[in-house]
């Protein structure tokens, strides 16, 4: 009872700014949300007359857990990443989706269709470098580890996810075997041993906006990046390049927190945002791949070529194993924290 009261309080404070919303849509902010506003929020409001109240979060499930437990849900639609979607769905934090209100399941990429969330775009974590500071282009994660040939600081995301995969790729593990190797204690030790080799050369970043900035300022020679951020930096005239070989792609989903007060409007929003034309427009704003199969056909080929889902960019790329990270994530992140803080 005490904790319930506490949780209610926290949720009430968290939700205060979104009271009296028509449909509250929460996503990760940055360039992607700017694109969502142009492609989804504004046209949806114009078509349906339902106002979209945008909000931002950093993917912390604690916020959603607190709201649902307290029975005071103020978010209607929320963008979530795949491991959080799987966990949240199992823990009953999200509504089970009624696809009759969204569209034909067959119209979407198979991975996009799940019980609690519908994929909205495909994004990728890839290697990027500053083409002004590097004379020769790196082509793989093995080059990322080669500090003699490419001297200078390297950026990686502070966390076990992606970092361990990249280490194993650099150590010569084939993409299809990565998660099999990581499941064994020897594989984990191997990944950390590989990371030990370049530990003094690594600068750890946390927010997606950091690496393009650090690359552009010359603080880093190369870094792992979210591909959308690099496109935004290129628009500003930075000469940053992406190496798609060894990139890891994943889906972001729309989900509805359980107990959303505007369920019907939330479905209307998701239905709109899953149509081909708005998705194509979104991809033109931010180069994340669409999940509606019909969207690519309506797209400018020049735009399509910059997406993680274009056939040329998929060579050497692979999908993150959500099940693996749900299962081993907590343990590996703890292990990573211990390693990184030494």
């Amino acid at each position, binding site marked *: 009872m005490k904790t319930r009261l*506490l949780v209610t309080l926290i949720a009430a404070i968290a939700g205060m700014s979104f009271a009296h919303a028509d449909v509250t849509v929460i996503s990760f902010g940055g360039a992607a949300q700017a694109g969502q506003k142009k492609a989804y929020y504004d046209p949806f409001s114009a078509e349906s007359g339902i106002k979209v109240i945008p909000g931002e979060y950093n993917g*912390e499930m604690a916020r959603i*857990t607190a709201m649902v437990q307290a029975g005071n849900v103020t978010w209607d639609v929320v963008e979530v990443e795949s491991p959080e979607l799987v966990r949240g769905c*199992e*823990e009953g934090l999200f509504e089970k989706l009624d696809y009759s209100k969204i569209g034909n399941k067959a119209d979407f990429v198979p991975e996009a269709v799940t019980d609690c969330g519908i994929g909205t775009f495909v994004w990728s974590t890839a290697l990027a470098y500053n083409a002004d500071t590097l004379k020769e282009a790196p082509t793989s994660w093995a080059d990322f580890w080669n500090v003699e040939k490419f001297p200078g600081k390297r950026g990686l995301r502070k966390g076990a996810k992606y970092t361990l995969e990249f280490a194993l790729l650099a150590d010569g593990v084939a993409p299809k075997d990565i998660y099999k190797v990581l499941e064994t204690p020897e594989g984990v030790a191997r990944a950390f041993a590989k990371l030990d080799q370049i530990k003094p050369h690594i600068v750890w970043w946390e927010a997606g906006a950091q690496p393009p900035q650090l690359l552009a300022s010359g603080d880093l020679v190369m870094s792992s990046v979210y591909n959308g951020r690099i496109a935004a930096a290129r628009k500003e005239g930075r000469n940053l390049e992406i190496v798609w070989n060894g990139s890891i792609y994943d889906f972001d989903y729309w989900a509805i927190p359980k107990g959303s007060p505007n369920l019907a409007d939330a479905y209307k929003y998701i239905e709109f945002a899953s149509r081909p034309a708005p998705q194509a427009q979104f991809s033109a704003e931010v180069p994340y791949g669409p999940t509606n199969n019909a969207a690519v056909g309506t797209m400018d080929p020049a735009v399509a070529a910059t997406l993680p889902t274009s056939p040329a960019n998929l060579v050497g790329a692979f999908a993150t194993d959500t099940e693996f990270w749900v299962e081993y994530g907590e343990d590996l992140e703890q292990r990573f924290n211990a390693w990184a*803080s030494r």
Partner: protein
Amino acid sequence: MTAASDTLDPSPARAVPLKRQLRRAERRKNLLFMALILPLAVFVLASFVLPIGSLLQRSIANPEVHDNLPETLELLDDWSGEGLPDEAAFVALARELGAARGTPAIADIAKRLNREQPGLRSLVMRSARALPLAEGTPAQDGLIGIDERWRDPVIWETIKRAGSPTTGFYLLGAIDRTIADGGEIVKLPKEEAIYLDVLVRTFEMSVIVTVACLLLGFPLAYLMATLPVRHANTLMILVLLPFWTSVLVRVAAWIVILQNEGLVNKLLMWLGATDAPIRLLFNRTGVYIAMVHILLPFMVLPLYSVMKGISPVYMRAAVSLGCPPFSSFWKIYFPLTMPGIAAGSLLVFIVCMGFYITPALLGGPGDQMISYFIAFYTNQAVNWGMAAALSAVLLAATLVLYALYTRYLGGNAVNKIR
């Protein structure tokens, strides 16, 4: 007042002795005072004692398995631990997992067991999905048919251990210990241990920041206390101004100043002190600079208030009696400032121990203090048991330190003055 003077009416006609009347008046006054502080007491209880209590309780709470698998646990109580439990336990587990299927309870069980041993989550989820067993299948064969791992007695041992109503699992984890399969408490392997180091680091950084604040703050407070009021007030405003600015803003400002292309590096390179920019950001140096800046007012203000109260007559007397200026400062003035030093250091130190945002934004992974990990478990991992356990360890460490401090430093300093 009138009521009090009525009862104190010393008329001999009333036989109540004066002593009792006085006591009664005292009691009434005490009740009045207590009524006055009641709102504060309620506030402190509701906003401080209860949340901390519920937090400490969370660090040992263990309801996930205990509440959802009651029958299985009861049967496992009778199990010797040798070989596999008997068929009844398998039947109970199959029934209870089947009942939890598709509800948040199954996720709770899976998450809790996975913390004991990574990999158990998939075992639980996969088994639950395949339940109920086909009519007539023995539960043991059925479960092992779903997943071979049910054949392993260690799994059952783990369920039994995770099923106790309270657990030391999180608290032990917060001091890098764990419960081995045999049940004894063991140290975590070196590559997984982290929190003791982090705790030591938190102390170490707090001590360094406190000393730095003292070294910088003492002369400043002395200057303010000895300058004419007009100038002292200007200085005071300069000390207080950053105090009124949000910590986040000040940290962001330090990022701009300290980065490779920042003011400090540009200045150093222009002066020719260095050729390449010095790394001041995302390492300990940057964290120290910003923390000292943020905490300096906490040191200066108590020092200043104590120094303001020291009469200049003492120093003049010492000098006029032939004591050289430095000795008279060291022997007379400095000991008199001890209460200020004690209060300021304690304040800075305790605030330091809980610092979060400055190291998180300005430091690298090797510069994070314990609060960072509390936030990590609260927001990202959503493992509130671990977050509560780390908070409990931080709270206990701070209290112990505070007790030692008042006993050996704070108390003495005050006594010396008396």
